[in-house]
């Protein structure tokens, strides 16, 4: 074995403190060291060229660079030795600048002594380094996008336009998510359906997107570049390619049930169009409310369908496909205000959620008036948010602004109305939000700072009486309203929770999907190749949702575009002879990279090296010493300990 040791002066940064010569002499005495050199600037082009030449000329198989921190120039020198034909993992840096010459500036003698130890630690580690190769793994251009709210739609369109194959899976019969229900959108007040429906229409028009509606994910296995997906398409009983949306079937259908798209405020038939801008624009038969399919109890819809689109015999269909990356865009649900008993929701005719109001306003714009809205209207903020009593400590981020929107829409529609917003803190932090808040104030909406403590709907008059403290004047207000709107907060949707379990994603407090880093990897997860966006990650408005969706698409493209990706070889591996199959290691791995498998009738641990991130936790946990990590072998750590403690190695 031939080890080359290079000691850097760093233009004086090191050499003014550490006696370079002594360090070189010391290095020469160490076993296997074939060459010791110094240089004023090891990172300079000249020095790195020298290094490449030396490796070739002297046949060095290990290199120690005694210079700055590996955090600073580790990658530089790994690249250099790689250029000379060696594995980048046979290069060790001895950090004698940040951790020696600089912090021990006034103790040159002790610093020199310490530098020798540090160099020796690098030499003994290098001696045991194995020439690991950076591995690559192939990756294709197929993406699964789960959930087709505005987040999923945006991500799918970006990916499809960039030439990637997208499977867009939506559990409902139509795409669009919650945004399709909204009236107008703050702060610009564009009509939600008007800006959303062209985007929805783009989805089936995109040749790269395979849209699977009415479909749920059953299982996902595998890893980056190789995720096997099993999805189940629930029967729709209507052929979307044949249906002309003529509405004859619905006219004929005798079953009337609450319409979930209108939050139950209106009704629909058992066969129905999910919503006016539905994509695919086809009817769907709801087998839970239909009079009965097996055996067939009615068939009125079938009889009137001229297009022959109805097929009562449809069965659930299992669909298998493989993708390289996954984007989760499964969105939110509104907080169920029945859990906040003091607000007597569901008991009271005139207490509605903001989403109910969104539907009322949208329908009014379309010419349908489901119920009168009244003259005196109160909005109650922070319902189900910032409230330990219901277990949600977070701020839902959007309810201040949607209340600001809805209140002024009501006020502007009828300036004689008295509209109040009872808030705790008014959070108008986005671009154009404060200006929008000011506009609401100017319109005449009254903002009163106080959390409504209780309300009650009079059983005779149906007026809602509420109690609140104006915390700025300290007056207790007891007042009656025609309508009270609960500004409900957001909760992760049931689908989000389910997918988190399927993909084993980590959840942040509140149950939202946890990003890999809150600042620098906001749409990555700790599972390689799985990205998150929109309200599945946390409450947010449409602009932020769309920005995240495009970011998630870009992050996925970044991985897939090269056709292959590098896998760091410093992974864990198992010495099968020592492994007892106890499974402790599998339990500590944060990435579930370890499985216990049967081999020749014996239980042993197996590390999936594509999944392993190299933390070493499993190594520390293994009672048998069977689990090891490359480049951080126990033998290497022991050798470094000895060197550090001044033993002969």
């Amino acid at each position: 074995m031939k080890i080359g040791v290079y000691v850097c002066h760093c233009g004086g940064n090191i050499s003014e403190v550490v006696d370079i010569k002594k360090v070189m002499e010391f290095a020469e005495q160490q076993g296997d060291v074939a060459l010791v050199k110094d240089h004023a600037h090891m990172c300079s082009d000249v020095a790195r060229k020298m290094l490449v030449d030396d490796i070739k000329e002297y046949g060095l198989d290990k290199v120690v660079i005694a210079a700055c921190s590996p955090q600073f120039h580790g990658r530089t020198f790994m690249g250099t030795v790689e250029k000379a034909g060696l594995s980048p993992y046979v290069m060790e840096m001895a950090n004698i600048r940040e951790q020696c010459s600089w912090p021990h500036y006034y103790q040159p003698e002790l610093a020199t002594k310490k530098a020798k130890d540090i160099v020796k630690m690098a030499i003994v580690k290098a001696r045991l380094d194995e020439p690991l190769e950076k591995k690559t793994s192939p990756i294709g251009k197929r993406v699964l996008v789960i959930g087709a709210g505005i987040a999923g739609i945006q991500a799918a369109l970006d990916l499809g336009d960039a030439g990637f194959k997208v499977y867009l899976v939506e559990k409902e019969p139509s795409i669009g998510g919650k945004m399709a229900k909204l009236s107008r959108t703050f702060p610009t007040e564009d009509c939600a359906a008007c800006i959303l429906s062209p985007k929805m229409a783009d989805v089936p028009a995109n040749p790269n997107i395979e849209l699977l509606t009415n479909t749920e994910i059953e299982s996902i296995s595998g890893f980056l570049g190789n995720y096997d997906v099993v999805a189940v398409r629930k029967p729709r009983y209507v052929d979307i390619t044949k249906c002309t949306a003529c509405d004859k079937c619905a006219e004929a259908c005798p079953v009337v049930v609450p319409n979930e798209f209108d939050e139950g405020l209106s009704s629909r038939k058992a066969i129905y169009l999910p919503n006016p801008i539905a994509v695919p624009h086809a009817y769907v038969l709801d087998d839970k409310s239909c009079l009965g399919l097996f055996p067939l109890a009615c068939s009125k819809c079938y009889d009137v369908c001229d297009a022959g689109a109805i097929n009562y015999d449809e069965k659930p269909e299992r669909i298998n496909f493989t993708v390289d990356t996954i984007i989760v865009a499964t969105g939110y649900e509104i907080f169920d205000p029945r859990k906040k008993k003091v607000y007597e929701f569901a008991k009271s005719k005139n207490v509605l959620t903001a989403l109910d109001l969104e539907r009322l306003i949208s329908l009014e714009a379309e010419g349908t008036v489901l119920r009168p809205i009244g003259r005196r209207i109160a909005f109650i903020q922070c319902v189900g948010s910032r409230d330990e009593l219901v277990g949600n400590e977070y701020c839902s981020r959007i309810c201040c602004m949607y209340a600001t929107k809805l209140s002024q829409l009501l006020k502007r529609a009828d300036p004689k109305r008295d509209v109040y917003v009872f808030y705790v803190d008014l959070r108008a932090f986005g671009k154009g939000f404060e200006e929008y808040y000011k506009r609401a104030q100017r319109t005449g909406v009254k903002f009163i700072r106080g959390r409504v403590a209780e309300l009650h709907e009079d059983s005779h008059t149906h007026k809602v009486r509420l109690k609140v403290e104006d915390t700025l004047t300290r007056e207790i207000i007891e007042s009656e309203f025609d309508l009270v709107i609960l500004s409900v907060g957001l909760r992760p949707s049931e689908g989000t929770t389910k997918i988190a379990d399927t993909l084993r994603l980590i959840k942040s407090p509140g149950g939202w999907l946890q990003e890999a880093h809150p600042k620098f990897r906001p749409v990555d997860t700790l599972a390689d190749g799985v990205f998150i966006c929109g309200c599945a990650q946390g409450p947010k408005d449409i602009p932020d949702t769309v920005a995240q969706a495009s970011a998630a698409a870009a992050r996925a493209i970044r991985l897939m575009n090269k056709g292959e990706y590098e896998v760091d070889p410093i992974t864990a591996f198992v010495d099968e002879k020592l492994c007892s199959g106890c499974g402790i290691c599998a339990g500590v791995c944060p990435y579930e990279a370890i499985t216990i498998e049967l081999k020749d009738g014996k239980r042993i641990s197996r590390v999936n090296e594509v999944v392993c991130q190299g933390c070493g936790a499993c190594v520390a946990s293994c009672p048998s010493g069977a689990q090891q990590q490359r480049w951080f072998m126990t033998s290497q750590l022991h050798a470094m300990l000895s060197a550090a403690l001044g033993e002969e190695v």
Partner: protein
Amino acid sequence: MKKLIITSENVKFLQKINELADQDITLCEQCGTCSASCPMVAEMDITPSQLMRMVQLGLKEVMETKAMWVCASCYTCTVRCPRGLDVAKVAEALRQVYLRKALDYIEIKKIPKYEFVSLPQIAIVSACRKFTG
């Protein structure tokens, strides 16, 4: 204009009430839920949320207010505070600070005899416990 100066005296007062009430009053977000929930608030000179605010700032003037004495310990505020604070306990802590100086808030002697005859025992005992040192 009053100058706002928080001295170590104020901090000590807050800490004392925190300790007695076993609460972290600093966490009150001044939402007013307690005040609007309180059945006695109309009788109070400051509202429960104001009382919390004064303690939060360590303003000892709170001891001169009537609110803590008017509080009926009904715990409505306690079960509704979104920050999980026990306002009723804070009121009790303030009463205790007063009563422990061997002071009484009401004079039992002044209550007419005929009242005593009809009043339930628990009313008398609790009033004594709440209002006398």
